[in-house]
């Protein structure tokens, strides 16, 4: 079990893959997760217009922690239809 990060839309290009697994010792906040990533990806994920979903539910920037077994999705502005 590890923490799964999903990258939607253009964030996939920045990350170089649609998803990434992190082994974490304990649940981490968004900024703690960002510290574990390449700076360029960390900056892209922190943009104000990127929404975050934890295990399928939208969450804010703070007030939560994600650990092994969780799925954290990064949702940039949509461009559908």
């Amino acid at each position: 079990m590890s923490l799964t990060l999903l990258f939607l839309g253009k964030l996939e290009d920045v990350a170089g893959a649609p998803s990434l697994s992190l082994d974490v010792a304990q649940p981490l906040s968004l900024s703690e997760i960002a510290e574990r990533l390449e700076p360029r990806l960390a900056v892209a994920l922190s943009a104000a217009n990127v929404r975050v979903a934890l295990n399928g539910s939208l969450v804010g920037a703070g007030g939560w922690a994600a650990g092994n077994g969780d799925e954290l999705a990064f949702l940039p502005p949509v461009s559908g239809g």
Partner: protein
Amino acid sequence: MISDVRLAHADFDAAHELQRFTLRQDAGGIVSFLGKVRAEGGDDAVLALELRHYAPLTLSGMEMLALRAQRHWTLTGLLIIHREGVMHPGDPIVLVACGARHRRDAFEACDFLMDHLKSESWFWKREKTAHGWHWVDPRDQDRKDLSRWAHVA
């Protein structure tokens, strides 16, 4: 009131779906929108289009949107079918139809649904041209279109 909201994982027959929807209700008028992958020529010709989505939110978001439309307009039926996955020129991307007793309800609800599917639903589009795949940026126009519906709860 018929409400039929679907995320399609493979090609669908838009004409058949619209006909079925039309026959299932006693609407005075039915407005539909069909969006298709265009077959443009030239160097930038789109060879394929992919819509990625975020499964936990996509369909439930479409269903919430349908509820908003049903609360605001008086409809006899509402249909949304939205593709995800890889499509090719001529393939349907999205079919929206609204039936109503009065045509203005049907027009406005259909217009509202399309504006929101374009700019508030959890889809990300990329296109394949001769230069490879690239992600499509959100259009300013799509965001502007949304501001037309500030009065809809």
